[in-house]
């Protein structure tokens, strides 16, 4: 019996109950879309477990799914503990200060700020903020430049060699230069953002500019001749032409570029954080590796899974935004 037929079976009574075939088809479809990935996941976990049993590293067994799940729980516990500690410190300070005030209302009182040690979840947040800022800056530059070079073939010819040369540069090559430039240029007594944040962000931007720029240019250059003819007959000015004709028809390509870019941004960020020891998930992985405790591999696996999941969600979010801004709601977007 095929899987589809198997899945259809349990819902037969339901359909006779509601009397609507469409409804049943929908339920079958939903079950399919939920159960097939579940089956895939189960098989994956099984293979992982079997493989992990047969690999032994210098830090002990390669972590299987169960160890990883345990480490994930540990990381959550550590996070809670850390936050509770800080909370306790504040409470103690309050008690101390209240006592002082009771004794002498004019006493000088110091309210200290306590910082918690950065936990796994703090690192996730840092990485997320950095990647989103870097990606936003890159898109902010890449889309307008892409539109301009897409519309004018002479600007395109002028800029294309530069783009093609910079595009394949690895983030690791950018990193030293960016670090040096930021240290030299960004000097302030009271910095709004940390240097390491800027370095990571700029590196991310530099690497994820190109897919958006190139795809935007291609999309813009590919506007159908018929539509540009309409625009010419109507004598639309440049801005209206871009808004009403160029952008709507280039939207799918722009989003293809944006999705490539955010994928690259995320990968680049983790690598940059590892190399530069800038706060974030990359640093977490590196620190665990240097730690070399028996838990390290499990914790690194947790980080890897989280990195993967976040990458996946970032892509889905871009998809949702694309659905939202795209004029053609019926188009199949993957």
């Amino acid at each position, binding site marked *: 019996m095929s899987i589809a037929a198997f899945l259809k079976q349990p819902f037969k009574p339901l359909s006779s109950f509601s009397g609507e075939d469409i409804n049943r088809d929908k339920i079958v479809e939903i079950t399919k879309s939920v159960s097939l990935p579940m089956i895939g996941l189960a098989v994956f976990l099984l293979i992982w477990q079997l493989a992990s049993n047969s690999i032994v590293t210098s830090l002990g067994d390669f972590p299987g799914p169960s160890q990883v799940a345990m480490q994930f729980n540990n990381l959550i516990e550590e996070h809670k503990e850390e936050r509770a500690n800080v909370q306790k410190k504040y409470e103690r300070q309050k008690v101390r200060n209240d006592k002082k005030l009771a004794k002498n209302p004019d006493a000088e009182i110091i309210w200290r700020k306590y910082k918690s040690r950065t936990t796994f979840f703090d690192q996730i947040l840092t990485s997320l903020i950095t990647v989103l800022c870097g990606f936003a800056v890159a898109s902010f530059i890449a889309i307008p430049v892409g539109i301009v070079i897409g519309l004018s073939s002479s600007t395109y010819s002028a800029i294309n060699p530069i783009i093609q040369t910079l595009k394949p540069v690895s983030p690791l090559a950018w990193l030293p230069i960016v670090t040096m430039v930021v240290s030299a240029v960004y000097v302030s007594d009271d910095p709004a953002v940390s240097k390491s944040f800027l370095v990571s962000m700029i590196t991310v931007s530099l690497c994820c500019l190109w897919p958006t720029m190139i795809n935007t240019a291609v999309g813009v250059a590919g506007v159908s001749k018929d539509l540009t003819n309409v625009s010419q007959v*109507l*004598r639309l000015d440049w801005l209206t032409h871009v808004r*009403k004709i160029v952008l709507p*028809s280039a939207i799918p390509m722009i989003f293809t570029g944006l999705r490539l870019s955010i994928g690259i941004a995320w990968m680049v960020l983790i690598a940059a954080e590892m190399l530069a020891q800038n706060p974030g998930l990359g640093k977490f992985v590196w620190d665990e590796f240097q730690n070399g405790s028996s838990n390290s591999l499990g914790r690194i696996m947790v980080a890897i899974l989280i990195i993967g999941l976040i990458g996946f969600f970032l892509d889905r979010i871009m998809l949702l935004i694309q659905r939202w801004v795209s004029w*053609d709601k019926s188009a199949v977007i993957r």
Partner: protein
Amino acid sequence: MHFLQISQVSIEFPTPKGQFKALDGVSLNIRQGDFISLIGHSGCGKSTVLNIVAGLYQATEGGVILEGKEVNEPGPERAVVFQNHSLLPWLTAYQNVELAVKQVFNRTKSKAEMKEWIEHNLELVHMSHAMHKRPDEISGGMKQRVGIARALAMQPKVLLMDEPFGALDALTRAHLQDSVMEIQNKLGNTVIMITHDVDEAVLLSDRIVMMTNGPAATIGEILDVELDRPRDRLALADNPEYNRYRSEVLRFLYEKQRKVEPFENAKKKNQTNNKSSKVA
């Protein structure tokens, strides 16, 4: 002086195999309010003539003069109904017309007047019921009608129509032909229409311009159609005058300008055509 003058227009297209002379010495004088049909075999250069009048193509030699001024760029006073409707797919029928109306009447009409004018033009082509639908939600004939409404709404001095009823079934086509006649009767537009349909040409036109086969196509004959207006398609069917015009056009197309291309040749030509269109 004539209202619209096409004088000694020739055009050459650059192709990978050298220059391709599509038109050679096309001359035509058009009075205000005339309804002109361009007829000729496929690929002879009808769309090219229209595009030159629209200003989308530049003639290599000769030029087009509208009311004493040379035409060298596109503009809304020469509205075009494109061969494939060319509506913006992301705008509704109403918004498509609106884009044109805003562009032309921005300074002269108030918002409310513009709205009324857009609705009026959609009404003219009987599209009021679907004016808030997007092109992919309406039929081919409806799209073509919106294209016509968009062009009419620009109140052009010259209305250029490239096979406006080409892709339609006979009933819709007849219906639209009647609307166009009615509208032209009311507004007195100057119209140049490309068609492959002999009946359509005779029914609608004041003059039928018949083009010779390309390359280097030019005007072969011009036929004045002196049938009284308003014209009624049923009454005309038995009219000997009407049938004389008809057979004259047919004779031109199938005797004087018969396509004599061996099959192999035609195939090759098609292939090169495809190539050049891809390069463009």
